[in-house]
């Protein structure tokens, strides 16, 4: 099990968290490569269906940030 790495679907708001993720890059902060970012225009766009769909498609975690 020690080899197992989770896959996390990250829904990031274009205006804040996505920008923050860009800034983390600019600052060269290092973090684990397990997230796959899906940019959304606002967390207001977020639908519970997206979360369910992510789990159904094999995501081990879902992160919504905005």
């Amino acid at each position: 099990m020690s080899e197992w790495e989770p896959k996390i679907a990250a829904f990031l708001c274009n205006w804040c968290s996505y920008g923050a993720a860009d800034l983390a890059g600019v600052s060269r902060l290092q973090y684990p490569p397990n997230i796959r970012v899906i940019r959304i225009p606002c967390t207001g766009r977020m639908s519970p269906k997206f979360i369910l769909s992510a789990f159904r498609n094999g995501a081990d975690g879902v992160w919504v940030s905005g």
Partner: protein
Amino acid sequence: MITFKLNGKEVQGEEGQYILQVAEKYGVEIPTMCHHKALEPAGMCRLCTVEMFDGRRSRFVTACNYPIWEGMQIFTDTEEVHKGRKLIVEMLLARCPEVPMLQDLAKKYGIEKSRFKAEDDDCILCGLCVRMCQRMGNNAIELTGRGIEMVVDTPFHVQTDFCVACGACASVCPTGHITLEKINQNVTSRKNVRKIPSEYDMGLKGRKPIFVPYAQAVPNTPAIDRDTCMHFKTGGCKVCTEFCGVNAIKHDMEDEILELDVGSIILATGFEPFDPSKFDNYGYAKHPNVVTAMEFERILSASGPTMGHLVRSSDHKEPKKIAWFQCVGSRDINRCDNAHCSSVCCMYAIKESIIAKEHSGDDLDCAVFYMDIRTHGKDFERYYERAKTQGVRFVRSRVHTINPVPETDDLEVRYVLDSGELVKETFDMIVLSIGLQTPPELIQLANDLNIDLTTGNFCKTDTFSPVQTSREGIFVCGAFQGPKDIPQSVVDSSAAASAAGEMLSPARNTLTKIKEVVPEVNVIGERPRIGVFVCNCGINIGGVVNVPGVRDYAKTLPYVEYVTDNMYTCSQDTQEVMKDIITKNRLNRIVVAACSPKTHEPLFRETLADTGLNKYLFEMTNIRNQNSWVHKNNPDIATQKAKDLVRMAVTKVALKEPLPEAELSIGQTAMVIGGGITGMSTALSFARQGYETHLIENTDRLGGNALTLYKTWKGENIQEKLKGLIDQVSREENLKIHLNTTLASVEGFVGNFKSTLASQGKEDVIEYGVAVIATGASEFKPVEYMYGKDPRIVTSQELDRKLIGNDPVLNSLNTAVFIQCVGSREPERPYCSRVCCTHSVDSALELKRRNPGMNVYILNRDIRTYGERETLYKEAREAGIIFIRFTRENKPVVAIEDGVVKVKVTDHILGMPLEIETDLVNLASAVIPPRDEKLAQFFKVPLNDDGFFVERHAKLGPSEFATDGVFLAGLAHYPKPIDESIAQGMAAASRAVTLLAQKTIHTNGEIAKVNPALCSSCGVCISICPYKAPSFIPDDARFFPGKAEINPALCKGCGLCVASCRSGAIGLKGFDNDQIFAMIEAI
């Protein structure tokens, strides 16, 4: 071209190239320790030995310095070669057993322990340092001695001036034999050479001679510092040119002098932070733990020298106690010549203390030593109160000296409290809140331009033309005009643009070029033909991610017709190449895997549009900021992640549709609501820039609050100036004044507003493109201090009325008392009214001028004469005006006893109650907004808790609303004096003109759209939309009456309605359900 065989494969190289260079080009790895791309090869380490077959026999040659020739055959991977290399490693390891690089190599070649006798050297005599030193043009070191005595040394073992301690030798040493520390010991201690201080990190960190000034710099291109670059010292080096893949470095570029014909000049030259090194009493130059506020900003910053970890410089210990000293280099004519208040330091010190606590936890003890806390900006007073509740200590005391505590790195201070008590306290760190001042070169510039400066060396301006310098056509904004914070600087800059625009409006658009629009190609119904462009971003992406691998992977994805990788996808020439590729391959969907869409999406969309492709048929995926930069040590995983991201983007883009953008015309008329000084300035600015303007005033005359104001703090007569302004407004042709008029309705949206104006029973409809709210505020009618009980107790505006009318009462006064913060900085009104301190000090001086013998008292909580207004405060003290401080808990009491007005207050120095019999009490009453909810509703703009309108952005958008086409200025935004009101009025006009000048704008294509067949008319979208974009289709409409529709001009594309539509009737173009689901499925 020379053709030869490399490991049996035919390869080509150029005449004069060495085997190693060609092998590198073809991706064949040959190990080497002494090779450097920028230096002539020397064949020192022998590790690159390969086998060469010349047609007759085989022999071993060193790949780094053996030139290629036609027909040769090279083998890099034979058993013989490996055996030879293993032996070399073994010998080197024996010489330098402790060098990590050799230990790694030994492991690779399966050597556990060298068979040869171990020595304890750490130099492998690769000669890189010597060759590099030569290349630098210095020739300070040499390989001296022969055979086994050979060492790297200076000739005759003597230190000479040839060594300039540039550190180039250390930078190439593979083993750690030469280090910067050793250079420092041997050379720099005598030469006083130090690291190149990073300007951005305030010298807390070093930087290279080639550097990007800071991560967010625009343009984000490195620059060469000619003062430190070795090439400019010796003519040597130029190593950088060998590494720059695009040959962008030109050392022979010279400064150019450009001559520009301009109609006006705007000075936005800023300030310099005060340098406290000359204050020996604070020991800033001596104690590393005494830092300036600018240095502390960097220490707090995540991109700063300590990566945002709050530690002190001397021992990297986390501080437990930090003190801030206010007014260092401000309000000080004793130790420096800065009489002014720098306006921003109180607020930034409070901010730093709160952020420091956020970094280090609540037990960090923060103490701010101050004279007056000046939090006069919008929402600043609340922030100050918040700091107090979070435990930041505010100590009213000016500390004289900082003493280091012997044997420690701590700092001891002694200070006196109001009560006279002497306190000794030790801090781990002390932050000097340094002030703002005009640098000498700017004073020189002002002289050269022949513009006047104030006594404090700021640019001299008039209250009624706040951005106009003393020379026509030259304008000023920002801290050169006077010390000020970001919002005020932003206001100023827009105002200066407006002032220049007024002058130059006849020439508007005469130098603009119109871009040709390529007709759009219809791709609807076509099978997707996707092009994927993967960016190397130099080595930013390519250095971590296997870009060719990602590119080849993209080729395997469905509908992908074309893939390529670019060195810099965003470069101008790549755009041309992309256009060609799109057209030639008839691509109809594009994916760019590069940096962030937030910065580069508009560029690529434009490239698409230039080929006739709808710009929304594009998807960008971020494999730099969110991948290569953050997973540097995991190239394999980062490559896999890049592939995943490309797959997700490709899947989404296949589902993208061309989106239309509605074109909106911008009505070329402006409406300004409010006929005070602000509104008039705004309207005048519009009219002078050639726009028809309506100025709406609900009373019967123009002027607003200014009608009852006497003089500005600079001594200008307000009534005279006001009359002049009203004259100008009345004479302006493009400007229509509507007195006794109120707004009865507002319809429409940016560029297309329509309002009914109600004026004395009549109604008038006007159409306009932009609106400015300048509805002002008014003086609070006090409810305390016996106001209204006696004619001798008046408000500031009432006193001004007496001064304007030369009321004879004023000539016979013996005593006057001013009471500050009446209705301001109270729990029910927790903001500072900004104008009252200066107003009272100014009125007090006026009374003193009229009756030099009279006693004048100003009872205050803090005196907030910010900027150069501080000189007025000084003048008042010199004139004998007495300032007595009180607290909110212990306010003065006004009583009328036997017809005598008495003010009782506790003197803050004596600690004793005082009773002042007075002829006049002036209550410096708050500025209160009308809380015009109706107007707010009309334009869908927000009000804050205090009743002021809320701007788009507190710092960067102070004169506009988040609602497009609606702007804001004057007291409706926040209390402010006349000069700032006028500047903001001009700023609002400036921001609005940026819209008006476009004549048409395009709405965003990525917006919500209702499928009326599915809509159940529930109205959730209408109630939930923050922008009022959805509405019901009228009942009498021919199609879908009663269903929801969305106004594309108002929709911001947030998708809130989409997620909340219970019928699933709303989709969000560009982020539709199927597109997001497709991305999720592709994860």
